[in-house]
């Protein structure tokens, strides 16, 4: 049951990104271009996405466990460390350069052409590299 629900959830996520035009890099780069021709669409997407999730967290609070799982994910300690901030800075820079973040990069693989595929493969390489670096230098970073 869990893989089927994961497939449905992933599918809805992709269709939502497509409907919101978030696989269009112009829309995302336009949102980050605050001092140029600013495009506020992404704020409506984020706002719309937060609403069902806000209620989902409230429901989760009142339940012992998910329908097909052992427990709900524990809330992380509110620790703001170098990893969180530096990682987010690097992510934000890459996000602006191309206009794709991990969700839309995958959702658009079917129609993003060679450019989209190369972005995806570079992203995977970055993920593997991050894992190697974090493992060898867990304290320093």
């Amino acid at each position, binding site marked *: 049951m869990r893989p089927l629900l994961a497939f449905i959830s992933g599918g809805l996520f992709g269709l*939502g990104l497509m409907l919101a035009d978030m696989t269009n890099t112009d829309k995302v780069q336009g949102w980050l271009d605050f001092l140029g021709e600013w495009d506020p669409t992404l704020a409506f997407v984020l706002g719309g996405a937060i609403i069902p999730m806000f209620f989902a967290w409230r429901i989760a609070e009142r339940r012992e466990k998910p329908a097909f799982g052992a427990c709900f994910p524990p809330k992380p300690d509110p620790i703001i460390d170098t990893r969180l901030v530096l*990682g987010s800075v690097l*992510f934000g820079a890459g996000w602006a350069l191309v206009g*794709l973040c991990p969700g839309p990069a*995958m959702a658009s693989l079917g129609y993003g052409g060679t450019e989209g595929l190369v972005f*995806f493969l570079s992203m995977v390489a970055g993920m593997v590299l991050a894992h190697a670096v974090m493992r060898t230098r867990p304290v320093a970073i």
Partner: protein
Amino acid sequence: MIDPDWIRGFAGGLVIGTAAALFLLMNGRIMGASGLLGGLVDGTGRHNADERIAFILGLIGMPALAMLVFGRPATNITSDWAIIVAGGLLVGFGTRMANGCTSGHGVCGISRLSVRGIVATLTYLGAGAVTMYVFRHILGVI
């Protein structure tokens, strides 16, 4: 006054949020695109690889199917290979270092009023805005 793109964006957002709510209430998982993919490619998510693969198959497959029905949406992605590779490396490395991206920290974190999610979102938005200003308005390369 209201741009139709905003309504489309809001409707798409509701679908994205519904997907995340389903994943949380049914599977007990946070819908974070970078974590689901990252755990698969670096081996840390081997114990629930089937769930990750199923999610990603849906994420890639359903829009591809929708494309066959509704036509090919424009991605307008740059054709500058150096920018594409640099951007991909930064997005992959940064999201794994920060343990989340727009879906995990943004959608799931903010809706939970998670301090880490809110700080991460403000940080990547700020870094993205500065990068956009420098590379578009000063250097003129994106």
